[in-house]
């Protein structure tokens, strides 16, 4: 493997956000997704591809507030979560290309990336599907007394699935160390969230007495702060939290939708949100604060671009998953 995961650096969880580290993660996600975009356009990526561009501050802010051994579950728009939790872009590309060295040996693909060692229990093709799984992981953490926290990433659309409410009740009842993180990108596929989802998402935690906060999902510091607080609460036995991160996806719901979807979002809205690019915002803050200069920022961009390109090259040259592998891994033969 040419690139390494970032699991180690997350040892700093619970402390102040390292903004340069956050920037690096966000740029890495952006570069990964841009590569996916190009690959999809050239017909190189099979299956569904849901890009995370525009939402990078959420994954980065949240995962940098977690420990390396904390767990996350994610959804169909999960590349950013995998990377932010410490996933290796090379093995991710390998997975998306159906290679043997992909995270799941080519069996999972974009919607089912699992990186067990980094605590990434799975992106998920079923909207809302990961929420109970994170809740169960949190139960295990509590029961084992290992002080780990589980965090579930899901979209605004998932907040209409019954399991979201059921999990809130259960987590509140048992004070489970779980963080429910809703990324409200204001659309559920091609429909505006308010046309499907009544009221404020944060309000949905109120019946269960679960603390809820809405934050600017394009402000990595705000996300980090909210998750850090929630993780602290979880670790000290005070139970679950709900965090709503308001953000926007720049791309379509999935790549290639343009041919069918029509214009379901005003161009002006897209432009407005592009002007609030979370990466550019963080960079200008770092420049203002004197933490970075143009050259150092360029260096980060260049190094992340290089890393992603090398990751892709490696994955692209890797051997395809052998077809017989399609029949393995249904059951584990081992005794636990």
């Amino acid at each position: 493997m040419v690139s390494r995961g970032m699991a180690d650096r997350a040892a700093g969880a619970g402390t102040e956000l390292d903004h340069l580290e956050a920037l690096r993660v966000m740029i890495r996600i952006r570069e990964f997704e841009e590569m996916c975009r190009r690959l999809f356009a050239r017909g190189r990526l099979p299956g569904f591809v849901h890009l995370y561009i525009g939402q990078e501050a959420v994954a980065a802010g949240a995962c940098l507030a977690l420990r390396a051994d904390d767990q996350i579950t994610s959804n169909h728009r999960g590349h950013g979560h995998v990377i932010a939790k410490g996933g290796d872009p090379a093995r991710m590309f390998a997975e998306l290309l159906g290679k043997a060295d992909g995270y799941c040996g080519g069996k999972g693909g974009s919607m089912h990336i699992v990186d067990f060692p980094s605590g990434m229990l799975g992106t998920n093709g079923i909207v809302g599907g990961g929420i109970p799984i994170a809740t169960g992981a949190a139960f295990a953490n509590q029961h084992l007394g290992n002080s780990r926290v589980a965090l579930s990433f899901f979209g605004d659309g998932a907040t209409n699935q019954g399991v979201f409410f059921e999990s809130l009740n259960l987590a509140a009842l048992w004070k489970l160390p779980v963080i429910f993180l809703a990324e409200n990108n204001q659309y559920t596929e091609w429909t505006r969230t308010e046309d499907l989802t009544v009221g404020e998402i944060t309000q949905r935690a109120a019946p269960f007495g679960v603390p809820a906060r809405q934050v600017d999902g394009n402000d990595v510091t705000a996300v980090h702060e909210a998750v850090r607080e929630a993780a602290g609460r979880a670790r000290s036995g005070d139970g679950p939290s709900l965090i709503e991160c308001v953000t926007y996806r720049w791309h379509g719901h999935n790549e290639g939708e343009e041919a069918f979807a029509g214009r379901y979002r005003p161009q002006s809205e897209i432009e407005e949100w592009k002007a609030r690019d979370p990466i550019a915002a963080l960079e200008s803050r770092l420049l203002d604060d004197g933490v970075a200069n143009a050259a150092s920022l360029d260096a980060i961009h260049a190094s992340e671009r290089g890393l992603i390109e090398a990751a892709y090259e490696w994955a692209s040259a890797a051997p395809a998953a052998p077809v017989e592998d399609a029949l393995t891994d249904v059951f584990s033969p081992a005794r636990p």
Partner: protein
Amino acid sequence: MGDSYLVTAMRDGLAEAMREDPAVVLFGEDADRSVMGSTRGLIDEFGPDRVRNIPLSEATIVGCGVGAAAAGLRPVIDLMVSSFFYITMDQLANQAAKLRYMSGGQVQLPVVYFAATGGAGSAAAQHSESPHPTFIQQAGLKVVMPSTPSDAKGLMLAAVRDPNPVVYLQEASLGGTRGPVPEGPFEVPLGKATVRREGADVTVVAVGRTVRVALAVAEELHGEGVSVEVIDPRTLHPWDADTVMESVARTGRLVVLDTARQSCGFAAEVIATACTEAFGSLTAAPVRVTAPDVPMPFAPQLERHLAVDEHKVKAAVLRSLA
């Protein structure tokens, strides 16, 4: 009779149903713009009162179909991808499939649930189910799976007109298939198979996209002097055993192709029926070609490896003839 894509023909069948009965209403995620294409444009003709975008609350929506049907509408519900039926399974299996029976026949439930089904284009394990055996097991659901654009239209109209819950499964990989489709309203009757190709040596029963595979193999084997009969049940429950048994009585040989996983699949049902009811007709062991008992993998080469393809089907037919 114009040419049409299967998914468009299905949509046209739905449009005919909505035209003829104002009680037909359509629910679906993005039903207005239609991710899969099967409801595209209907909102323009029928308006947002009858074409409803729904929240991601599929279990509740399926139950709403039951209540709305009981209360006088004929709801049609787009669940998009057949894997998503699982989330609705209680409302589907414990309520929709059983309410009429439990009520002693008091209630009539004209409701259609449809979705794209089957592996197609590396959609991976959670978007590639072929769950029709699970629906067949429920007893109170009719289950249809068209393999041609014309049947897609005619079965949709028949499904909406039917007074019972119907699960309509549209093979994802066949959505873009083109073929001739009659204009205007017409029905393909539920419960009736069709013989896609007549033959004398072996009966091949094929569902959904495996019909085309069967026909290709039949054509190829024709060149090798083997005469293959291809039957497309179209309705998988209740299915047309008569047509199949009549064919097996002539050919003595049976090969069944199914997109579902093997264990307790539809191929098992057809073979068990033939062997228990027409054992004397069989001159050779029946053969099944199905998906193996594994979830659907993502990578194209893995997905392809599991597919019911011409190679496997030809081998199966030849085995039945050996």
